[in-house]
């Protein structure tokens, strides 16, 4: 995952991708490892660029990590890659344009990963091991590696049940893995006792998506109307979604 180490030389993934777009000769300060890696980018023959290639490899590594090697092999096919990209781009727009929009899974169209906003100064409760668990869990979460993040976040929350910030990200990871009942429970707890107004707004939106997936339409509609009236970051999305589920 993109990471900037302070004590070692080298570029983070974001910096590397940016540098590779700017050309390989622009990084005179880079060390040998980075310099050679950037020069290697001249052999890139994918149209989608290094970012997509790295994401594909990320998936392969995740897949290999959980001993499920076959899932991502189809991504080798360029035709499938193009088709999948087109579907991903057009899916939300397509649903929104349909007069009778009733997808079986609303979070497919609306779910977005939200990077963790938790700084490196969390609670010290539970000792060093459980803090390590939190750090590990949030790094996996930020990698969108929900399979790794979920058990770690759960272990951490078992020891720190009052940490509603972490519970919020736990909810997103669960929703990302389509574990709707557990996600509903997590978001409901955050909505009841939010760590801040920002979290409340976000938790309500994700809870609404979860309720829709669970076909709890009345509750979902009520929550979406509340979000719409509050005129916050999700107002427009809530409005569109309300029209779509009429």
């Amino acid at each position, binding site marked *: *995952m*993109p*990471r900037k*180490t302070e004590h*070692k030389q*080298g*570029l983070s*993934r974001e910096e*590397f*991708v940016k540098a*590779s777009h700017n050309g390989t000769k622009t990084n005179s300060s880079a060390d040998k*490892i*980075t310099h*050679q*890696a*950037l*020069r*290697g*980018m*001249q*052999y*890139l023959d*994918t149209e989608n660029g*290094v970012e997509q*290639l*790295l994401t*594909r*490899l*990320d998936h*392969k*590594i*995740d897949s*290999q*990590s*959980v*001993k499920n090697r076959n899932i991502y092999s189809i991504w080798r096919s360029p035709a499938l890659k193009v088709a999948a990209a087109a579907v991903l781009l057009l899916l939300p727009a397509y649903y929104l344009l349909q007069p009778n929009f009733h997808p079986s899974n609303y979070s497919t169209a609306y779910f977005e990963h*939200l*990077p*963790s*906003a*938790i*700084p*490196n*100064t*969390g609670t010290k409760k539970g000792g060093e091991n459980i803090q*390590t668990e*939190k*750090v*590990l869990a*949030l*790094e*996996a979460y*930020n*990698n969108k*590696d929900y399979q*790794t993040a979920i058990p770690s976040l759960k272990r951490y929350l078992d020891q720190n049940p009052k940490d509603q910030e972490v519970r919020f990200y736990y909810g997103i990871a669960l929703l990302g893995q389509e574990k709707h009942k557990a996600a509903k429970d997590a978001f409901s707890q955050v909505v009841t006792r939010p760590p801040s107004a*920002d*979290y409340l707004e*976000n938790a309500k939106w994700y809870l609404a998506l979860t309720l829709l997936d669970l076909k709890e339409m009345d509750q979902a509609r009520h929550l979406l109307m509340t979000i719409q009236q509050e005129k916050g*970051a999700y107002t427009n999305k809530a409005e569109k979604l309300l029209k779509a589920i009429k």
Partner: protein
Amino acid sequence: MLVRQKNSPYLEDEELARLYQERQDTRILGLLFKRYLHEVLGNCMYFLKNQHDSEDASMEIFEQLTSSLKKNSAPDNFRNWLFIVTKNHCLKRLRKQIKERSEDFSEINTNLFVENDDLDALIIEQRIERLSHAIEDLKEEQKKCIILFYLQNKSYKEIEEVTPYSLNDVKSFIQNGRRNLKVKLS
């Protein structure tokens, strides 16, 4: 909206490596490997000069790490250690490719593929590394044709088809490139 803080919570590389050894959980190694995946991939591409081989090599290196970190103690500087692992892996791969075309390569350097008691694997790989660097210094058109001919096993005709060069150009670029490599490696 929530905004990601600057000081995101991350574990040091060495701590992650130690955790992997402790828990034997490949997902932890995956987190660590992905921190440097861009550099691993880029270096594979630098040595192998081909994207698809480099993708495969990157995954092979990940697999190699799962076992070598289990057996050995965690390195002091993970990034530097990973670079050495990457380089060695690529040179081994190149050595195999070169061996398959030993006849053609003998025109550049007769010692590139010879294996006997006097010339151990390490020396051969050092020579291959020099060859890889030397190819980088060739003129663009020579480099392209040399890579396609020697490393990707393409015929003159096939190179003509995948490049804008004529058959005569291809032959000439390979001949000149070969001569330049010979000078650089002598």
